[in-house]
């Protein structure tokens, strides 16, 4: 693995290796001394063109737990209006000797541009790009699902195993969701079946090529599809209602909640073992009710903790081995 740009680049074995590595990382995080010397001397740059305190802190924690040096580079505001800035920023980071660049960007594909450009030698980790991909989020989701639902919920070690036979419903704004895109690819690579549930306006044209089912109705998916996990997507405020520049994608928040919100009644439709997930931050009362968010089935807080382990695993797998120059002799 040279970069982590998209879950589409991961085959089953690569994905399982990341999950297994994450499990070992998670085991170290219950110790008193959580810090490992593994990446001493390596420099990880968090290059965030878009605010995301949660993701940035998660990556920062992961890198620090592995003893890497961390540089946080918040480039918000200097970004997309003039593309030159990505290049100049990248060249600056290269001069600082970044071994890995964790990039969050509002433009889909910006991490690909960075990885392809030759502006930086280091590994590029996509920490969320526009409406494209958020691979570490999908990995932590898959990790969380595996921990809860594979090997009898902790009864046996799920190491080496995928998500074969599980059914995951992903509900909400699929059109604009990098979480949904990443998860559809990763979860199906791992053998799970995915059903997307969204109003038709929030389903992308071209979705028929995705390896998943699409439904416009939540109740039958929950009741008849018996999903093992339900992942609620955040609804962006700016997508709501008429009068927005791109047009409202649904009439009112109330109607959205009525048709696609996860509440106690819908929770009761689920199989007993099913878990409820949300990438955060939640809009309580919109896509998820407080009842659902705080129910014992919700593994939302655990997702956050697993995020650190998964990101440690990704940084380890990208940075611990031979350096790129040692491997190939070329930049």
């Amino acid at each position: 693995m040279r970069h982590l740009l998209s879950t589409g680049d991961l085959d089953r074995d690569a994905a399982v290796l990341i999950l297994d590595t994450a499990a070992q990382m998670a085991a170290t995080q219950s110790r008193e001394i959580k810090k490992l010397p593994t990446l001493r001397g390596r420099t990880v740059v968090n290059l965030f063109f878009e605010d995301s305190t949660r993701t940035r802190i998660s990556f920062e924690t992961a890198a620090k737990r592995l003893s890497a040096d961390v540089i946080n580079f918040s480039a918000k505001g200097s970004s997309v209006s003039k593309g030159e800035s990505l290049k100049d920023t990248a060249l600056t980071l290269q001069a600082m000797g970044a071994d890995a660049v964790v990039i969050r960007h509002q433009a889909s594909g910006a991490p690909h541009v960075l990885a392809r450009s030759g502006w930086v030698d280091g590994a590029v980790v996509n920490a969320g790009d526009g409406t494209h991909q958020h691979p570490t989020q999908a990995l932590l989701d898959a990790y969380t699902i595996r921990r809860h639902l594979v090997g009898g919920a902790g009864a046996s070690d799920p190491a080496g195993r995928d998500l074969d036979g599980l059914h995951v419903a992903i509900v909400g704004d699929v059109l604009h969701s990098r979480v949904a895109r990443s998860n559809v690819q990763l979860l199906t690579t791992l053998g799970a079946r995915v059903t997307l549930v969204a109003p038709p306006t929030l389903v992308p044209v071209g979705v028929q090529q995705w390896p998943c089912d699409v439904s416009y109705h939540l109740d039958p998916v929950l009741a008849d599809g018996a999903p093992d996990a339900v992942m609620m997507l955040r609804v962006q405020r700016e997508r709501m209602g008429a009068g927005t520049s791109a047009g409202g994608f649904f009439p009112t928040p109330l109607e959205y909640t009525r048709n696609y919100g996860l509440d106690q009644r819908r929770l009761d439709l689920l199989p007993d073992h099913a878990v409820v997930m949300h990438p955060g931050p939640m809009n309580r009362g919109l896509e998820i009710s407080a009842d659902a968010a705080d129910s014992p089935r919700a593994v939302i807080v655990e997702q956050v903790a697993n995020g650190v382990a998964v990101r440690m695993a990704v940084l380890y797998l990208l940075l611990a081995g031979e350096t790129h120059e040692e491997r190939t002799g070329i930049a």
Partner: protein
Amino acid sequence: MTSGPAVPTTVLGAPEIGRALTRIAHELLERNKGAHDLVLLGIPTRGLPLAERLARRLAAVEPGLDPLALVGVLDVTMYRDDLSRHPTRPIGTTRLPAGGIDGKVVVLVDDVLYSGRTIRAALDAINDLGRPRAVQLAALVDRGHRELPIRADYVGKNLPTSQAERVRVLLDETDGRDAVLIEATR
């Protein structure tokens, strides 16, 4: 290019390995005045079955000892100093006995003692896991060429080698048979 396949020389067979482990087990008991407070941490891959074999031998001598309660596994991958010189290594499991290692005598068990760097990493790993009363080292084979001031407390067999040679330990649990082989490398 090699000049044909190297024929490995068997330097220890199954009976010799068994006798060496039995001897180490007795030395362990003698030196530590019993198995009380002993923890055997096997270093993957072959240190773990060796630790388990040693524990069974201890239990055979010391009645009432649960051999499995003595044994743990210590993966040192994340403490290695040579990570950037090799392709990325998968991380193995670390599992301590239920009683932990604080105040215990930890015996690191590995198959081959060579440069000492693995043991250096293991000492660092132990340091992050707790505070044992003492740490000792048992190795089935000591082939010399130390790069660090580390020595074994218990050695199955001292095996003078050249650095051009490769020492392979085969164990029934991992390889289907017991043997120690030396083969020439390019």
